[in-house]
C-alpha cells in the first residue's frame, strides 16, 4: 500500500479506501444488488478495518483482509436477516428449461434471486477470481459445497440472463 503522501493513520487509511474502495464497493454491489446497501456494507467493512488499522496496515495484503471482512459480514448478516431478500417463488425448478427471452433481466437483479451464500460463491469465484479452495476457506464451506453451489447457481441464472449463456438458449 502506498503511504507516500500519508502522514497520519487516518490519512493513510483514507488513501487505502480510495485505492481499494472501488473494487470493494463493486463486490458489495454484486452481493446486495442495491447501491445504498452496497455503500453501507462497504462502510461497515472499512469501519472494522479502521478499528484494527494498526495491525491491518502492516499485513501483507490489507485489501484481501478487507475483502474477506466484507464477505463474512455479508454472509453473517444475511443469514438470519431476510430483510432485503426478494421473493424466490418465481425461481424455475428446472433451470434447464426453455426460458422466455422476454423475461430476461439485468444481471445484478438476477443475482438477487440467488441465496446469499450462492451469490457470495459466484462473486468470489467469478468476480474476485478466487479458487474453489480459497472460496471454501473464505466462506467457511467445503470445496464440494462450493462446486455444487457454483454449478447450481449458474444453472439458475441461465434462463434469467440468457444472453450471457447463449449456448443454452439458441438451441
Amino acid at each position: 500500500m502506498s503511504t507516500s503522501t500519508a502522514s497520519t493513520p487516518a490519512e493513510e487509511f483514507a488513501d487505502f479506501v480510495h485505492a481499494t474502495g472501488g473494487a470493494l464497493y463493486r463486490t458489495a454491489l454484486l452481493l446486495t444488488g442495491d447501491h445504498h446497501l452496497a455503500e453501507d456494507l462497504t462502510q461497515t467493512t472499512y469501519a472494522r478495518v479502521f478499528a484494527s488499522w494498526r495491525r491491518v496496515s502492516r499485513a501483507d495484503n490489507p485489501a484481501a483482509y478487507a475483502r474477506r471482512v466484507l464477505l463474512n459480514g455479508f454472509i453473517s448478516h444475511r443469514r438470519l436477516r431476510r430483510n432485503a431478500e426478494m421473493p424466490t417463488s418465481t425461481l424455475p425448478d428446472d433451470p434447464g428449461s426453455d426460458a422466455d427471452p422476454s423475461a430476461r433481466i439485468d444481471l445484478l437483479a438476477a443475482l438477487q434471486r440467488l441465496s446469499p451464500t450462492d451469490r457470495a460463491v459466484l462473486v468470489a469465484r467469478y468476480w474476485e477470481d478466487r479458487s474453489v479452495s480459497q472460496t471454501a476457506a473464505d466462506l467457511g464451506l467445503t470445496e464440494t459445497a462450493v462446486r455444487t453451489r457454483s454449478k447450481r447457481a449458474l444453472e439458475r441464472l441461465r434462463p434469467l440472463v440468457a444472453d450471457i449463456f447463449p449456448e443454452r438458449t439458441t438451441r
Partner: protein
Amino acid sequence: MNDPENTFRTALHERVADQHPDYARISAGAISAGSRIRRRRRITVTVGAAAAVGAFTTGGLGLSQLLTTTAVDQAPLGAAGAPSASASTAPLASGQSLDLGDGVTGQVVTNDEAKTMDITIQTASARPGAGTGFTIVLSGPAGAVEQKWSNDTLLEDYPGVTIATQGARVGLVDEVPVAQPPGWTCEWYLIDDKASCTSEDGGVAGLVIRPAEDYPDWSKSGDKAGPRSGSYITPLHGDIFISVQSGEGTTDAELEALASSLRWTD
C-alpha cells in the same frame, strides 16, 4: 474453466465496471465508526459475573486477573488471506458476562439455552470457532446495543457465535401501514419493517418502514431518495415514513408512481 464461466466472469465485470462509491463519505464514516469500535474494544470477560465482581470488590482479584483483554489490537494478523482467525483467546462459556463497553453487557448462553429465552437473533457467524454453540445476549442502551451487534467485531472475535438482543423483536408498526398499492402485490415482513412488492408485469420493489428521526436525512439527500437514486420516500406519517426501493424490472418512473400511490391505512 469453460466458456460459460468465462462469459459469466466477463459479464460480472462489465456490469459493475462503471460503478463508483462516494469515497470521501465512506472513508469519513468508516473512520468515525471504526473509532467508536476501538473505544469499545476493551472487552472485560468475567467468568461467573457475580462471583467475580464479588471477589473483585473484596480485593481478591485484580482487573488483570479478570481476563481483561485488548487482544484484538495485539493479536497477530497472520496472513492477509486468513483474517478470520479469532483475535480473542478467551473461550466462551455459558454463564459468562461480557462487559462490552458503552453500558452494553453480553450474557453468554448456549444455543440450546437461547432457544428457551425471549430474545431476538440479530446476526451470527457462519465460521466455526471460539463462539460455536454459544449465543451472546446483548443488553444495555438501545443505540449502543444496535451499534454493538451491527458494527462491532464480536463475530470476528468469536467465530461461530450468534448475537441476540433481549426481548422479541417488535417492528415499528403492528399492522400493515398502507393499503395494497394498485397494480402491485406486496408481501409484508412487519418484524423486519419491510415488504417486497411485485407488479403485475413482474417488476419488483421493496418497501421499508423507517422511523421519523431518519426522515430529515432521507428527505434532504438526493443520493438517498429522488430521481435516479433508486429510492423514493413517502411523506412523514406520524412517527414513520416509507422508502420505496428499486428491484429488478422496475423503472424509476414506476418506482416514483408506486411511492405516490401508497395510501396510509390509518
